[in-house]
């Protein structure tokens, strides 16, 4: 396959002329994709060596890091982009990696220390991406947006295919505030003016010494693996205080068992059966009185091991 982008003497474009990305093989229109291969490459300078010059390189492990942001889109049949479903399912249960194909990013698979500079750059599928954080934000001024940060690596050297739009999902629209709903057992939550739902997956990227029987040709300077150490689901919403609102809305903190705090975003329902609320905040201002409520979800220890604990689609 020919190299994409500027290696073939430029296909410089902007906006929608630039092709987007594929998640698990499904096309996803993104507002921004800033996922790059990163590596600690520096000089070690402090040795007894006969001068202050930095003469000894230190080339560490490489991995992928970055973030994407996109609006949640449905097609004309109100069906979500398959890529969005894949991201949400993975975010709530990060037990296997996502793949990312993109036209704009060349990768280097070989050991940087032995194959430096510009050699052997390839258009490869990033086949082990893990979501570190995911935020769904909804308010009246914008479309419902997902921002997700990733860590990952290339597990297998697989040549990527060009990311081209899926013809079946070209037409569609972005979900907006009008597609959203919020409720909990004690309140219809008619005064919520915006909300933000977050997933925090604590990741550890580890490097190990090469296995004792590994052939030299199979060495790799990538991180050896990524582990998900902890999973935390949280969120916050703002309520405009007005006359006529319900009484049981000022939350003074603590858990509410079976409260079923739920947010509906088009075909997506996000539910927190037992939220652990923080004390709500209510600043006094000359404008509207807006109360902010934050919570973490109390969930089964094994809930992130399977899908469906947070999102219903």
């Amino acid at each position, binding site marked *: 396959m020919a190299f994409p982008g500027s290696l073939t003497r430029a296909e410089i474009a902007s906006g929608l002329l630039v092709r987007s990305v594929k998640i698990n093989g499904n096309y996803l229109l993104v507002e921004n994709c800033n996922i790059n291969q990163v590596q600690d490459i520096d000089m*070690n*300078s402090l040795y007894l*060596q*006969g001068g202050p010059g930095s*003469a000894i390189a*230190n080339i560490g492990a490489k991995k992928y890091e970055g973030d994407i942001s996109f609006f949640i889109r449905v097609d004309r049949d109100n069906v979500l982009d398959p890529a969005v479903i894949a991201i949400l399912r993975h975010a709530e249960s990060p037990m296997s990696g996502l793949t990312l194909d993109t036209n704009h990013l060349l990768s280097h698979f070989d050991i940087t220390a032995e194959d430096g500079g510009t050699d052997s750059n390839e258009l490869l599928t990033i086949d082990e991406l893990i979501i570190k954080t995911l935020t769904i934000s909804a308010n009246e001024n914008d479309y419902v947006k997902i921002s997700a940060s990733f860590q990952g690596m290339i597990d297998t050297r697989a040549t990527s295919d060009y990311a081209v739009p899926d013809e079946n999902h070209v037409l569609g629209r972005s979900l907006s505030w009008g597609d959203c709903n919020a409720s909990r057992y004690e309140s219809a939550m008619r005064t919520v003016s915006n909300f933000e739902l977050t997933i925090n997956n604590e990741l550890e990227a580890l490097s190990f*010494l*090469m296995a004792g029987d590994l052939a030299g040709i199979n060495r790799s300077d990538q991180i050896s693996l990524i582990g998900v150490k902890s999973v935390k689901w949280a969120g916050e919403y703002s309520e405009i205080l007005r006359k006529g609102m319900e009484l049981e809305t000022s939350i003074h903190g603590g858990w509410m068992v079976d409260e079923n705090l739920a947010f509906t975003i088009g075909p997506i329902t996000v539910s927190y059966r037992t939220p652990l609320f923080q004390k709500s905040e209510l600043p006094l201002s000359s404008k509207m009185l807006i109360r902010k409520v934050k919570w973490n979800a109390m969930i089964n220890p094994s809930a992130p091991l399977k899908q469906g604990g947070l999102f219903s689609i």
Partner: protein
Amino acid sequence: MPLNNNLFGVYKSIKVSGRTYVAESANRNVSMEVDAKNYIQGSPKARVLNIGGTKESISITSPILVGAGSAVDGRELANTKIAEILDPNSASLPVLESAVYKVSPEGASVSITLKSDGDPGDPASTAPRPFEVTGREIEELKPGFGAQPSRVARFYDFRVQIGFRKFFILEAEITVAATTTEAYFLVPYNTINDGNPAYIQGPSGSGTITAGYQFPFLGISGIKITGKGKAAVILRDIPGTANYGDYYFFDYYGGETVGTDESINLGLSRGQSDLTFQRPGEAVAEAQSFRLEIFDGLTDNAWESLLPNTIDTSKSVVSTSNFSVSTGLLTVDFDFYCWVQ
């Protein structure tokens, strides 16, 4: 004198036995035994001193490098000194007391302890000294010196195997320790006093040994190789069998009597052990070889032992195994001994 770079060690380089090595730090410690003796002397004042022999020890921490710098790194120094104690004909001061090779994903280094006799030597001599500090730039560290510039060795440059423990090893350390003995001799009667100092002529008539001074004779009477490591542990859930059901740690991959334990780098199942247990009348080594190797990308693109090739440490015994269960990584720390061949 507002600018004086001589204050900084980075402008220096060290020499051991006349050869230059790159180091992170180096210490040379010399001491002499001095004690006050009080006799029945009519005064509590220290009128008599008891002055004994000298001791000199040198400790150096040096990185393990890849590229041209590998000719002047800690591994080269340690392996040179190990080779010397194995061949007395090539031995020179200082002699190796211990060399500790530490390898982890962040890098690798060698901590070396050497021993010398503290003799300041003849001021007119140009012979190499056991330990010297110079202002010489280390040529091998110039980026264009050899086929490759220098870099610190990282996790992808090493492979490790301690018996069946070969996956997910986080750190490994191997120690080569020499048993050295210091001895002080009285001035022999039959010295040849045609020079300063007096000396004893060797049996062949060529070698000379100074004696009767404060400086000790150093003898090497043993070498042992030990090590330790730390590995992450995977506990897989392998389905059980019809006879035994599904028990964690007790299931086998591929059958009830053969195959792989559910745990990697750790023996937790029935009949398994982390330690290399012995049997009556038999010396039991780990079923698989011990390896601590570095990739040689300069010459033959193959793995080679971190230690000198003349030392065969393939047979080892694991003597301790400490399994740690926390909210972080599952890890096992282990210690091992090697038979040295």
